């Protein structure tokens, strides 16, 4: 995972609430088997249908911080939504409320999702219209969003922050506790279902 410490960039104001992950990346773009190349699918329907869509406006080209209305990332669990935002160039998304699964995915993949008050979103939307070149700093070390002398504190638990600051992989952290997992497994009731698998094919080359 890419580390996140502090990022300064311009804002893309997405004046919508309830942006579901089907809008972030439609299902037709989910067929790739790699983790890359999803940027083309980002907001594909809105980008193609609406010349005035925020990502089609020249003054917001190169923006790296997406500021959206409440309930951003609801719906499908597709992590492709996070990959599409990252692939397109976004480093952080600000919204008053996120879909749970999307939020979890983003914080695993190194896209910082920041919960800010609705008033901050409104303020940043207005500012992006007024001054599209104006920059915003998202500081994970201090847990602050800063712009124009305004400082908005945000919450993120210490563990997730530590993981993002260091770019740590969750799996590596968990596998240090393999003994605890094995102990739990040994105590599981015998009636729980098990699925006989096919014989594994030979590994390696």
């Amino acid at each position, binding site marked *: 995972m890419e580390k996140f410490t502090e990022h300064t960039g311009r804002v893309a104001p997405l*004046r*919508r*609430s*309830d942006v*579901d992950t*089907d*809008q972030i990346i*439609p*299902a*037709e773009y*989910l*067929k*790739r*088997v*790699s*983790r890359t190349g999803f940027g083309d699918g980002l907001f594909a*329907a809105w980008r193609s249908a609406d010349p005035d869509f925020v990502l089609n406006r020249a003054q917001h080209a190169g923006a790296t911080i997406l500021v959206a209305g*409440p*309930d951003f990332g*609801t*719906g*499908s*669990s*597709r*992590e*492709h939504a*996070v990959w599409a935002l990252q692939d397109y160039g976004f480093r952080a998304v600000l919204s008053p*409320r996120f*879909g*749970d*699964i*999307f939020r*979890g*995915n983003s914080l*695993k*993949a190194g896209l910082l999702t920041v919960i800010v008050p609705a008033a901050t979103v409104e303020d940043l939307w207005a500012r992006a219209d007024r001054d599209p070149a104006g920059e915003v700093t998202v500081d994970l070390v201090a847990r602050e969003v800063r712009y124009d002398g305004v400082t908005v504190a945000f919450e993120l*638990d210490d*563990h997730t922050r530590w993981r993002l600051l260091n770019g740590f992989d*969750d*799996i590596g*952290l*968990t*596998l240090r*506790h*393999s003994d*605890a*997992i094995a102990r739990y*497994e040994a105590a*599981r*009731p015998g*009636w*729980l*279902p*098990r*699925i*006989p*698998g*096919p014989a*594994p*094919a030979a590994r390696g080359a």
Partner: protein
Amino acid sequence: MSSTLAEKLWESHLVRREPGEPDLLYVDLHLVHEVTSPQAFDGLRLAGRRVRRPDLTLATEDHNVPTAGIDQPIADPVSAIQVETLRRNCAEFGVRLYPMGDREQGIVHVIGPQLGLTQPGMTIVCGDSHTSTHGALGALAFGIGTSEVEHVLASQTLPLRPLKTMAVTVTGQLPAGVTAKDVILALISRIGTGGGQGHTVEYRGPAVEAMSMEARMTVCNMSIEAGARAGMVAPDETTFGYLKGRPHAPSGAAWDEALAHWRTLRSDPDAVFDREVVLDAATLTPYVTWGTNPSQGGPLGGVVPDPASFADPGQRAAAEKALAYMGLAAGTRLRDIRVETVFLGSCTNGRLEDLRAAAAVIQGRRVADGVRMLVVPGSMRVKEQAELEGLHEVFTAAGAQWRSAGCSMCLGMNPDQLRPGERSASTSNRNFEGRQGRGGRTHLVSPPVAAATAVAGRLASPDDL
């Protein structure tokens, strides 16, 4: 200390708890499909890791698979590669797979309960948000992203922060013609798409207790549409009766042992939920959506609302955008909305009872001229049983198309899609813009309403016919 069912399941799956860190929870069953798993298996390969518990992992092909001509290779080359990738990954890592054409293949959330793999008290995850379906049997079940899929494959655990708890009590009795789908659509309309955010919902009360297992699955399935990660119903005699004799359910002495445990799985009488919502079943009528998120719905007897009637500016703007996308004018009677396609299927309403309910309405009638109706069983077993009961003949005699199992037009990853501007009545779970095909317009409905709509050619309930 008293606790809720969700809290009990959480505590009983705790592998490790340390202050300042997320809890590490054990996963009893991991369901896998072709769309959200390829990058996870790649991750394992890159790190030289294996699947820790292939015996707790089951894969199926559902999202991409065609529902017609399944004896032929998949025509879309990109879909074919994704399905082929799953087959290779399952073979390499020793995971059991039910491929297209297999008797056990079907939508992942239909086959889990059907096989008896979904049992009370279990933790179940899948790279799919509708994993909440399995909570109907009293499991803690929720959708995860691909990074988490890789984590579960590698460790059979997930690091998680506890979820808040919500009780949704449905009092009274559902009137005739009102289904589980109407209950959940009414709930989402009431609390909004973010109303359950951060929560596990426990559905309870007389109307829920009276529901069949399959109806409970419909309710739990759409918990995510209210923002809740998981939905559940405490197991009872209905649950045990459903499970008994299923292929993976315990038998003999193991059944008795399991049953004794399952009977303990209830929220304590004095357990405190973070939020409580009460719905009166007696006041509900068939519900349909008019907008582009599942909370934008209302009783079929109503009209398309005027965006100006929403006090909240965000909701007002969302309603304006929704009506523009849906091509609807405020004040239009919902019963006057004509549709071109009816989709009966999905993990929400693709089970046997759903097909029976729709068939009962459509029996002896005809799908209206100019309307196509797709009937897509949730699994090949559902298809098989429906055919034994002659339901396929009821549908085809009425002019509907009888298909094979898959996610199909719920999300249009296979060839079953709406054309731009085409309008559907759909028993699926999401009316998002473009969900059923770019430019497509979706009205979410129950199976009886879907069938009546197919006959009438416009949104209708069976009573209208």
